């Protein structure tokens, strides 16, 4: 018997939670208490659930961006730089525009600006990769370091709001931020993120452009052989990926924070990488994993204060999940091979 469908995810989740529970026991904490607190806090309480869903918006947009890149065989690991620069750009632009143009126009322009900034920050690695075949893992990571530092420099030297003591950009009033959904605290960026991740999935699976990207990702020589414009495809995949990650930065600022403080870096870019792998680059599956992770984050932060389990334990759970998903997959393949099917 081989594991099918939901069971394939369910079994590793249970295993990860069990081993995670054992670790908690060793640390002298009550695993049942921790898990039930996390779940109650992040999903069962209305306020917590809203927080969880709000937290999903940037994660989903980053996931959409990573799926485009990874499926095209491009390892864009520069998400943090692209995200942060885009966040700073939209945070700087929004208060400046809001007096002059209507709120809707301001928000759209700021999101476009965020996407554009993310895109621009990926151009150098994109061109180096497509023209000279230079490994994008190195170049995107380097650009990410530069990007996060540059964002700080901008906040501290150029965009600093003189009215505050802590260096930060001017703030966008709560009423001017992304509209909330149906009287909740969840902003409409979540809707946009859902659309983006589903749109990316449909693009990759149902369009000629998506198929070309997949061929490029699976076998670059075959893409050359079949006559695709490999250089352009590479740059396009990079641009789309970075634009979506940039959009995530803009949405987070316009929806939640309203401004960017110096030294603020949620470092979501690399956090989403394992989620995208867990979902095997599938746009629908990544929604589920993002919800799971988001709930863990929201519950875990609170649990750090209430139950005394460090917030980083959430990452331990994600790592365990990744491990067990891989293990189950490996055992399953071995079994199918042995069965000769």
């Amino acid at each position, binding site marked *: 018997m081989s594991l099918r469908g939901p069971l394939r995810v369910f079994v590793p989740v249970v295993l990860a939670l069990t081993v995670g529970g054992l670790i908690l026991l060793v640390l002298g904490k009550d695993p049942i208490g921790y898990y039930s607190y996390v779940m109650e806090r992040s999903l069962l309480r209305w306020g917590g659930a809203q927080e969880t869903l709000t937290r999903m918006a940037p994660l989903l947009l980053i996931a959409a961006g990573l799926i485009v890149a990874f499926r095209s065989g491009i390892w864009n690991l520069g998400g943090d730089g692209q995200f942060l620069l885009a966040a700073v750009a939209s945070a700087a632009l929004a208060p400046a525009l809001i007096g002059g143009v209507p709120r809707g126009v301001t928000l759209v322009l700021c999101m476009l600006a965020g996407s554009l900034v993310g895109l621009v920050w990926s151009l150098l690695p994109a061109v180096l990769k497509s023209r000279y075949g230079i490994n994008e893992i190195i170049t995107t990571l380097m650009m990410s370091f530069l990007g996060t530092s540059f964002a700080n420099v901008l906040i501290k030297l150029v965009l600093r709001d003189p009215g505050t003591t802590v260096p930060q950009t001017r703030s966008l009033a709560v009423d001017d931020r992304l509209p909330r959904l149906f009287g909740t605290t969840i902003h409409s960026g979540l809707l946009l993120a859902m659309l983006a991740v589903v749109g990316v999935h449909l693009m990759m*699976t*149902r*369009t*000629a*452009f*998506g*198929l*070309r990207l*997949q*061929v490029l990702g*699976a*076998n670059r*020589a*075959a893409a*050359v*052989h*079949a*006559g*695709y414009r490999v250089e352009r495809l590479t740059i396009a995949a990079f641009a789309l990926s970075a634009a979506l990650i940039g959009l995530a930065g803009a949405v987070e600022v316009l929806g939640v924070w309203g401004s960017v403080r110096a030294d603020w870096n949620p470092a979501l870019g690399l956090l989403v990488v394992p989620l995208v792998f867990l979902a095997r680059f599938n746009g629908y599956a990544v929604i589920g994993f993002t919800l799971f992770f988001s709930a863990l984050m929201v519950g875990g932060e609170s649990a750090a204060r209430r139950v005394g389990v460090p917030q980083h334990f959430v990452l331990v759970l994600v790592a365990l999940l990744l491990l067990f998903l891989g293990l189950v997959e490996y055992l399953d393949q071995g079994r199918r091979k*042995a*069965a*000769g099917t």
Partner: protein
Amino acid sequence: MSIVAALSGITKRYPGVVALDAVSLEFHAGEVHVLLGENGAGKSTLVSVLAGMQQPDEGTVIIGGNPLRIASPRHSIQLGIGTVFQRPSLVLSLTVIENLMLGGSWLRRLARAAALRRFRELATLLGTHLDPDAPLAGLSLGEQQQVEIMRALWRDAKLLLLDEPTSMLTPQGVADLGRMMRNLRDRGVALILITHKLGEAYEFGDRISVLRLGKVAGGIDPEALVAMEESGRTATIIRLMFGLEAGEAATTAGGHAAELAILLGRKIHGPAVVDRSQPPVLRVREASTRAEFAETPLRKVSFELWSSEVLGIAGVDGNGQKHLAEMIAGQRAVHGGALELGGIDITQGGVPERRGRGVRYVTDDRLGEGTVGALPVATNLVLKEVGAPPWWHHGITDWAAIHAHARVLIERNDIRTPSALTPAGKLSGGNVQKVLLARELDAEARVAILNKPTHGLDLHNQRLALDRIGTAAARGVALLVISTDLDELIEISDRIGVMFGGRLAGIVDNDAGAIDRVRRLMTGAGAT
């Protein structure tokens, strides 16, 4: 003569199949032992047992009188067994000499001077002219195989296994290999030669054994082989290979006509009728390509190709054949010179433009660039049409249409796949080639380039591929067939061109004397 190695009751089972069934064979010093048999008869399993890659379920290998199990490839080498596999298994990022030094001890320093001495020794023995410092990636498959043979001989092997070593070689290469095998045999080495060609079995073999469905069906020992007439040998072997009754063998061979044709090198297709009063379909004028590291570029190649014509391209691997194919397909830029298709200049423009005009290319690198292994067969069948109607409308994929199209092609071309959605990488080599042939030799094809269309295929699939070439020519397609198998080119071509050092050394009509002229050109004798 003394027995170097013997197999005693070797049985190897895989799920659902017995690959070797109580096989017992003896390999004598100073003897070339030929193993014949259809694909799936167990030859490759036998090789991997001796090479230490597979352990038998039952039975033992006896080396120098001691029954033992060959636990690993390292053990096999220590026992003095050298193996040349069908597919080169070398490290492409290293040079020739580095590849040869790889097997050494972990702790010892790499003794380059000693290795070079050994390299020159073997190069003299084999008659090769490889540069020891050339990176492997730049060598052709044929040249890589020469390195592979050197590596197998590196430690003075007492038993040398050659698994279809001639399939990639030119006639000159085959002759060289034969000379080398005789040299080794005279030095007391036991050789095992696996081949699909009876001619080679007779020419090089001292003893012949035939495997059939995992069992030793029988054989011809040295005394009988010398005593027998060729027709008698052939009748015996065919009877053993296909399990036929004695009388039936020579005439019909019970539905094995295709395999027999290759076995005997018999000509099936007469050349199609080519009408040279019409203008040629393809005209290549003094076309050159840019040199790339360790690749031979084209130097002012000119020829014309007519509708329904099969132009064979012979030559030792690595003399510019790949550049020629890629240049015509549009995958490689033309640097100087011109290409004309049906009177229209197509010098500029890449693969999509050329393909739109009916240029097709069946690459020899079927898994590396011809297909995307991770994607389904159906997708691979439209890989070069992505974005084009009727399967795409405004960029949106019509998967239903693509899958229906795939099912038709799978049915029509007898592609053996569980479904149209199976990843292409799971198909056997023969079926991958069927996918490529179905994709390239479609109704709109006008000029088709086929690079080594039968390389690495079993007899049945070789036959099928050659048949497809014949049918395409009959339909009016102009075909350029690149191959290192001269017999094959003689069989299917109207004319044969020879590549040497990036130039087209000459084109000869495929008549009675063609083979000698082609051989002369292949050595560079006719080139200026």
